[in-house]
């Protein structure tokens, strides 16, 4: 029989993991909201950030938390670069633009993964030592691992920062305007291409932040992105395509549903719980929990 302690532990673990899922999904949702493109290389961006974190930690013997801002900046550059040199070209397709964009990001994912395997070999890496690794807070028998706790806090801070950016800055307003009507913003002097590039940079930076935190406690491998990307896609769909804060709510929901269904159902069926909830949302509210009506 399950004790109350076990139930609380499962909910706490689900919540911590869910906040991380939300952070992973935020960038995906942001890019989709801005320009209706699903970035199939999102998981690979995260994987790149994990390798970057690993590399910088090994190279400079610094703690992953210290190199994290550098990784975020690096990923911002990667995102903007990918927009300039791949996505902006894919968007110029006159016919089947949607499919061209799908294949462009899908191709990007395969190239990044292949290169990672070629450069880093498919061996499994882990960051051996860090301030947080191996530390766990035990509060009345409920265990909260320090890395996951830090990940959850970073995620909340990132969402607060994102909210401030969107609501309080000119860039946020330009982003919002471009998202409303990408064609019309040109008339008021906003460079659409620049906003899109910044949007991709921001999206990659967010998932880069998630990757650099994840690297503290998760194995690093060329395929690691795939494990999380599927969760990110369902999170975005569940929260409502393009709704960044919907992704926050949906990420937490996915984390909790995953934790509960792995306990209530045979654990091999836990993904079923997540997708059953998604199908239920599709049935009741097809645009997702916080999706806009367009």
């Amino acid at each position, binding site marked *: 029989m399950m004790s109350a302690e076990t139930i609380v532990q499962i909910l706490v673990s689900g919540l911590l993991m869910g906040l991380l899922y939300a952070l992973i999904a935020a960038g995906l949702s942001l890019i989709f909201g801005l320009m209706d493109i699903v970035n199939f290389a999102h998981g690979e961006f995260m994987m790149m950030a994990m390798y970057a974190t690993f590399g910088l930690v090994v190279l400079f013997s610094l703690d992953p938390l210290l190199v994290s801002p550098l990784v975020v900046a690096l990923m911002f550059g990667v995102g903007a670069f990918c927009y300039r040199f791949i996505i902006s070209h894919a968007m110029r397709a006159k016919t089947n633009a949607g499919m061209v964009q799908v294949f462009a990001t899908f*191709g990007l994912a395969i190239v990044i993964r292949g290169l990672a395997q070629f450069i880093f070999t498919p061996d499994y890496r882990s960051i051996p030592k860090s301030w947080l690794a191996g530390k766990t807070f035990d509060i009345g028998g409920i265990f909260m*691992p320090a890395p996951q706790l830090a990940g959850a806090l970073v995620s909340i801070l990132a969402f607060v920062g994102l909210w401030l950016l969107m609501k309080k800055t000119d860039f946020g307003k330009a982003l919002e305007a471009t998202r409303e009507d990408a064609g019309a913003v040109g008339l008021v002097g906003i460079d659409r291409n620049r906003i899109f590039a910044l949007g991709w940079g921001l999206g990659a930076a967010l998932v880069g932040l998630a990757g650099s935190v994840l690297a503290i406690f998760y194995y690093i491998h060329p395929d690691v992105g795939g494990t999380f990307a599927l969760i990110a896609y369902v999170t975005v769909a569940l929260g409502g395509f393009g709704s960044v804060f919907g992704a926050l709510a949906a990420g937490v929901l996915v984390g909790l549903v995953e934790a509960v269904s792995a306990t209530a159902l045979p654990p091999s069926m836990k993904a079923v719980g997540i997708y059953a909830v998604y199908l239920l949302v599709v049935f009741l509210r097809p645009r997702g929990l916080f999706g806009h009506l367009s």
Partner: protein
Amino acid sequence: MPKTDRLNRRQATALLGGAVAGLPLGAARAQAKDIVVGGLYPLSGANAQIGVDAKYAYETALDIINNKHEIDLPLARTEGLPNLGGAKLQMVFADHQSDPQKGRAEAERLITQDKVVALIGTYQSAVAVTASVAAERYGIPFLGADTSSPSLHRRGLKYFFRAAPHDEFFTQAMFDFFDGLEKRGVKIESVALFYEDTIFGTDSANVQKKLAGAKGIKILADIKYRSNSPSLTSEVQQLKSANAQVLMPSSYTTDAILLMKTMAELGYKPPAIVAQDAGFSEQALFNAIGEQGEGVITRSTFSLDLAAKKPSVGQVNELFKARSGKDLNDLTARQLTALLIMGDAINRSKTAEPAAIRDALAATDMPGAQTIMPWRRVKFDETGQNNDCTPVLLQRKGPKYVTVFPAEYAVAQVSWPGLK
């Protein structure tokens, strides 16, 4: 034609080219007179490192077969295959990506296009299931080098062979080991099973349940989990609640790392861990978990400390290490041994025709002394299984595994809670 269309096509080609270049398929064609054996391994995806290491093991075996070495192993002292005019043995590899359907398709491609005379593989039992059926249909011998599901040789296939133990041998060894502990005053009363949801994990757990039931050992947790999950927190929480005397995991590397890390995070330390190999034979796991690995026991078919009793183990390990930078482990030792057995059969077939190789494999009778394994001999029964292969149990002591069971191969005493 509008300019944009041309640009897009060029970019698409560049993308595709990049994608293909990124995947090391290693399908270089061998020369005509060489005899070619196909290797089916995961060379991309979550288990790609297994395939990379397997290639080093097979290259080492090819070196032993094709060049002259003073090692007490089949075909080592000659160059090439003497019965075939000194013909060289070669291997081509295909990437099954851990996917049973791709495994079947790649097996067919190796057979029909690369004209391989035999197949070796596949790491995952789930892939061996489909690939060996394809081999059977084309009449090509299939040697399961490192697949351990007991159901594989019970499908009535004529072309399927396995020299290494399957999970019934391995699991039997674990429970024999428990018996030994009981004689020394430590009775095992409960276990927790933790296994991944493909044929490897489920077959392994089925045998464990059967043997535990026969000995009256209680199974306090029976957790079949989804492989490559982002999180195993709920699963580990259940293991922790069950609090069994022995945790028995059957997991590939990624899940093994996540399992052990999550256990540490949730403050769960089982009194003992007895693992079904796979991820637990990989150095990457112990790099990831550090001191937490101390005392972990795994089953194995091989142990490096056999070198004290068999000089060939040390010699072969040097050849392997020069290529891979790693010591031989359970998997790479089985792979290397498999190709030596295959080479021996091809040599005895005299013709290198698949049907003749099959008959030569069926007639194999190789003394254990001529392998690097702790086996009595290699001789296949009518189902293609070798029954004279003894598994060993290894325990992690400091930075390496040492043999602790059975007594005839043990180099150290097992450490176990409560054992004097």
